[in-house]
């Protein structure tokens, strides 16, 4: 039966294949060793180390070929670990002194280092424990002879399912079988597995509880690494939809090779700035690769999921933001304060907060941020400090009243005060903006210029709340559409009002990358669109073909219409008549009704 499993997007892309369980864990048990066997045990250990080193070296060559020398250094470090005297002597001493088997002696050493690494303050350096563990577990497997043989069908497309996966196992599996996706119980965005998956362009989803129970083995699954979804036993229609979604993205990758330096400007001279929405800080490279003129929305939530039992510290925030703005300099970087709550809340916080009966409109985002100031204050402090290094702007999510804006500014003032006292360098007044995603706030834009410098329209939530329809409800997709004349009217109001009072305005929901909506947004005179980096090339090409005058006319007609379906039909006809031969891009050349419907159906689900 078809089932949707939600996780966290770790690496973008669409994958389809049969699930395959990967359980790498081996368990060592202590066994006594007779005195005359000690030397043989040590010998056995040394041989296992040699074998592990050989495997790593082979793999290193493979990685160097696929990903370049720089990534291969991850494995260099592991090879060095297996040469490390502290490790080797540590194990051998234990075998000798405690007269235990090599497996157990190694296990003791692993545990010892585990504790020492856990004590490291710097999160990134602490994560390097993964590499240590990876190297040592390899020796452990060599010792036990339990290295699972890879006798898998080499031609079948597989989706790996694992509780966790080490970088070297991952590389090994990718080399041996056709890995089309990765479903993990645990893995942070900063982990090497995540970084490798993104480099290899293998879609990955993590954060799925009890993954071996949730995702069955040997079943067909679709994995959507853009939105963090896994569909078990998808229907043929779903497979079709996802295939076409995948085709778009492959096409975009091809497109970006060409003319990534061009700008989005209509033939009659209206310039639209295209920015990137990113989930993880290290996506900045992709954003630039796809030609983003800045980061329009950095969703910072993942930072709050990196630590199993605590909030990220100011320093941890700071390093991420400082690096990001430095890399992007002089382009702008809009960082949204964490939109925690709703479906996004770390486990340990869930346990401490009262249960929300309707979390989507409950204690989330700014409501939580103002009530529990310890959540946002370090983040805001880090943003002010990082703003010294580049064009950093702060965006506040889920605002429904001006009171909240005032209270937020108060909090910023408190942070400034504290920073001033501590004498640390910071930028006191980076631009602050409000997310327009609750319909009520759309009508308050005219007052906002007194308090903030920009607004960003989050169309995903705005549409969801305005039409009172859950955006991920499978059966109600037909209702969740940006073409409803009332939705268009509201967005137009925000764009106009913002510009009237001199606020910068940006659209950062899925609508910003919806081909059919683009003429309308151009018609509204929306100067900034922010989207998933992969969409940027196609949207840029498209804007270069759409006259603003046409957009204005289409908008005027749309606003007179009574039904969203009429608007959709009109836009579709316009595109087809405007480009009867098809244009530069297969995306639009092949556009017909079913494509559009399936496209809308698949894109209208992701978070912002």
């Amino acid at each position: 039966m078809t089932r949707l499993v939600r996780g966290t997007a770790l690496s973008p892309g669409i994958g389809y294949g049969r699930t395959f369980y990967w359980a790498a864990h081996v368990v060592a048990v202590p066994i006594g060793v007779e005195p005359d066997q000690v030397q043989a045990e040590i010998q056995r250990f040394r041989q296992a180390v040699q074998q592990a080193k050989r495997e790593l070296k082979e793999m290193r060559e493979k990685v160097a070929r696929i990903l370049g020398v720089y990534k291969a250094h991850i494995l260099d470090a592991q090879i060095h670990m297996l040469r490390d005297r502290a490790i080797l002597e540590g194990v051998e001493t234990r075998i000798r002194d405690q007269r235990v088997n090599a497996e157990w002696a190694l296990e003791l050493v692993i545990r010892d280092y585990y504790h020492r690494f856990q004590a490291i303050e710097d999160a990134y350096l602490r994560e390097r424990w993964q590499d240590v563990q990876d190297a040592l577990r390899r020796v452990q497997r060599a010792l036990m002879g339990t290295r699972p043989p890879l006798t898998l069908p080499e031609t079948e497309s597989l989706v790996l399912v694992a509780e966790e996966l080490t970088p070297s196992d991952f590389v090994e599996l990718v080399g041996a079988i056709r890995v089309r996706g990765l479903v993990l119980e645990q893995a942070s965005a900063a982990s090497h597995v995540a970084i490798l998956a993104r480099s290899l362009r293998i879609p990955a989803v993590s954060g799925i509880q009890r993954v071996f129970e949730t995702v069955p083995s040997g079943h067909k699954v679709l994995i959507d690494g853009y939105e963090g979804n896994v569909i078990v036993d998808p229907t043929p229609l779903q497979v079709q939809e996802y295939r076409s979604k995948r085709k778009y993205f492959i096409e975009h990758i091809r497109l970006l090779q060409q003319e990534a330096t061009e700008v989005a400007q209509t033939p009659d001279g209206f310039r639209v700035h295209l920015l990137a929405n990113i989930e993880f800080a290290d996506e900045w490279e992709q954003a630039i690769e796809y030609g983003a003129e800045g980061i329009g929305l950095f969703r910072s939530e993942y930072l709050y999921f990196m630590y199993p039992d605590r909030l990220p510290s100011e320093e941890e925030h700071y390093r991420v933001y400082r690096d990001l703005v430095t890399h992007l300099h002089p382009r702008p970087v809009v960082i949204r304060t964490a939109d925690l709550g709703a479906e996004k809340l770390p486990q340990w916080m869930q346990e401490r907060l009262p249960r929300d009966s309707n979390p989507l409109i409950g204690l989330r985002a700014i409501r939580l941020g103002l009530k529990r100031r310890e959540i946002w204050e370090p983040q805001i402090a880090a943003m002010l400090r990082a703003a010294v290094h580049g064009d950093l702007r702060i965006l506040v999510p889920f605002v429904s009243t001006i009171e909240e804006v005032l209270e937020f500014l108060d909090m910023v003032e408190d942070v400034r005060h504290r920073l001033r006292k501590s004498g640390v360098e910071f930028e006191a007044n980076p631009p602050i903006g409000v997310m327009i995603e609750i319909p009520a706030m759309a009508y308050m834009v005219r007052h906002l210029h007194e308090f903030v410098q920009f607004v960003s329209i989050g169309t995903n939530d705005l549409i969801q709340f305005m039409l009172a329809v859950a955006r991920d409800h499978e059966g109600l997709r037909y209702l969740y559409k940006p073409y409803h004349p009332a939705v268009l009217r509201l967005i137009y109001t925000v764009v106009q009002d913002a510009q009237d009072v001199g606020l910068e305005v940006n659209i950062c929901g899925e609508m910003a990358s919806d081909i059919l909506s683009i003429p309308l947004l151009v018609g509204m005179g929306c100067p900034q669109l922010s989207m998933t980096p992969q969409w940027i090339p196609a949207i840029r090409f498209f804007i270069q073909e759409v006259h603003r005058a046409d957009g204005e006319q289409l908008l005027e007609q749309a606003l007179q219409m009574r039904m969203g379906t009429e608007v959709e039909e009109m836009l579709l006809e316009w595109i087809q008549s405007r480009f009867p031969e098809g244009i530069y891009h297969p995306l639009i050349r092949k556009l017909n009704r079913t494509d559009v419907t399936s496209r809308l159906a698949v894109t209208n689900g992701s978070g912002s």
Partner: protein
Amino acid sequence: MKEAEVKVVNLRGLHARAAARLVQTANQFTSQIWLIRDNIQSDAKSILGVLLLAAPKGTVLKVRASGPDEEEAVRAIQQLFERGFYEEATEESNE
């Protein structure tokens, strides 16, 4: 014995790849080489030891070498730190 101060200038600090390079360099010398951070002293030829120094960007460490090629060893390691373990350059040319 020869000593010098070095500063971690690369972005990620003394992480796995940087530590690997450091150990690789240290191993080219016969002298004993240590890295010292506050009160922790690590063998520069042990990658685990280097990683456990947990030195993020900006940390100042002391390099100490003792042996026949101590001067060259300290100089080589100093240079490695100064150049940020050749990170940025490699990153650009390979990615």
